[in-house]
């Protein structure tokens, strides 16, 4: 049996001023070392769920919460944001919301969380240097965080989460400010971290990327879990359009070839296998 590190059961949440529930029955488990993706239209509850995983819901965003969120065996109701942050780290959707606004340069910004956790100075310097190099921000350590470009702030935000060395990383559309190459760089790092055993929970709108990375995918709609399955199964399911999700273009290529009788196998969800299918269909 694989070890369960995140267990969410029938989670419901209504923001204090909210008219309806942002989450209305979400249940899932994530296994240790898994790459778990969450997809769904804007407003389906993805960001609220991310906030609930790290304790921002209900400690920072207050409201009416039902059901349970258990991280590494600890119910978030019996924990605190500070305690949780050593187990699970969130990279915000809007990196500007993640800055401490007290640090005078990037190095201090990165070290901010470490200070709160009482990490000794020598260790702090080591970790800042390591993370700065990893995120390719070692050339801007002296700069004021407020003078950076959107893409740079996103790298700093990612670094300041990762520096706490959580075993579970939650990424809420964490590359919206980056160009495609910059996003790929970040995802290569995430994939590397995942290979070293870190559990990744990722929210993203780029279905090609989700298809490439995910071990399993959960579809959210109007605050509810619709289904949880492998990328192959999710994207082969014609019903997903009902949830405002478009399968990767590779699926539509396979479908079109299948309809014409040039292909009879499974739908492909990544580029290289699709190219092979097309090449074979051409000589058939």
């Amino acid at each position: 049996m694989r070890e369960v590190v995140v267990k969410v059961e029938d989670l419901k949440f209504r923001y204090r001023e909210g008219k309806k529930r942002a989450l209305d029955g979400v249940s899932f488990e994530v296994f240790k070392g898994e790459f778990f993706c969450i997809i769904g239209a804007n407003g389906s509850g993805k960001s609220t769920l991310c906030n609930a995983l790290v304790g921002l819901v209900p400690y920072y965003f207050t409201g009416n919460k039902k059901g349970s969120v258990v991280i590494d065996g600890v119910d978030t109701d019996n924990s605190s944001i500070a305690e949780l942050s050593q187990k699970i780290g969130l990279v915000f959707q809007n990196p500007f919301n993640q800055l401490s606004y007290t640090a005078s340069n990037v190095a201090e910004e990165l070290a901010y969380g470490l200070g709160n956790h009482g990490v000794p100075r020598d260790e702090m310097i080591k970790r800042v240097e390591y993370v700065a190099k990893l995120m390719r921000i070692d050339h801007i350590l002296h700069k004021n965080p407020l003078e950076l470009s959107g893409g740079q702030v996103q790298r700093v935000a990612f670094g300041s989460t990762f520096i706490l060395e959580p075993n579970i990383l939650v990424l809420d559309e964490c590359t919206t400010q980056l160009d495609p190459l910059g996003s790929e760089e970040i995802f290569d790092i995430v994939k590397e971290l995942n290979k070293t055993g870190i559990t990744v929970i990722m929210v993203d709108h780029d279905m090609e990327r989700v298809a490439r990375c995910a071990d399993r995918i959960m579809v959210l709609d109007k605050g509810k879990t619709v289904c949880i399955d492998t990328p192959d199964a999710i994207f082969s399911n014609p019903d997903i359009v009902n949830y405002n999700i478009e399968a990767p273009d590779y699926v539509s290529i396979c479908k079109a070839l299948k309809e014409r009788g040039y292909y009879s196998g499974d739908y492909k969800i990544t580029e290289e296998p699709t190219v092979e299918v097309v090449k074979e269909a051409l000589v058939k």
Partner: protein
Amino acid sequence: MRIELISLGHVYPTGDEALKGVDLVIEGTEPVAIIGQNGAGKTTLVKHFNGILRPTSGQVLINGEDINNRSTAQWSRDVGYVFQNPDDQIFLETIRKEFEFGPKQIGMPEEKIKEQMDFVSELCLLKDKLDLHPFDLTLTEKKFCTIGSIIMMDPKVIIFDEPTCGQDVEGNKRLKNIVKTLQDMGKLCITISHDMKFVVENFRHVIVMCKGKVLLDGDSKEVFSQVDKLKQSFVSPPPITRVAQKAGFKETVFNIDEFMREFDNRKEK
């Protein structure tokens, strides 16, 4: 409207040379997409179209008139720029006030403001949210709020800086409809985007920027067929196009219908 750039250069006060001699003509109502890596100079370029930035060398001509002849406030009646980060643009306490602000500044008559308000709030799907505080909107709704407040001023040219960032399927459809509607009204839309699927679906005129220069400028099919040049600018064609190219298709295709047509052509041979 005709926007003409003659060896346009821009060096920021920090010494960073963002534009290195750009020659370019944009005219008519065919929507234009500008693509390229972060730091290629896309935003710096478009900020010259209504004088938010002024050339440090070369010239910008709007309908033949030098950009330096007028202030940005004056130009913005003709050319509107929607900021990349909505928080840089939003500053009032309701969306209605955001929408009214620009038109009032340029002395638009009350009647016309009302008409525009109905049209724009419908177009941006913000009709039910006009009296909310912009900071109660989601990031993507905020983007539509900033888009709407520029369209409110009824400029002839509208520039969108990364409108697709963070949008879902529905948001992209909403944007598509905005671009199409503005084109039908005879406006010129110029859009910076990293989302290649969105670009090929909505724009036939594509400009690729790389290191402060224009690398490619032309019909989208023409542009996306030049794989090696695109690589220089770190731009990658959309998935369907890439699969077709790797499978050896000669024609550049952008959607599944074109893909299958080209597949059949090759099959017959």
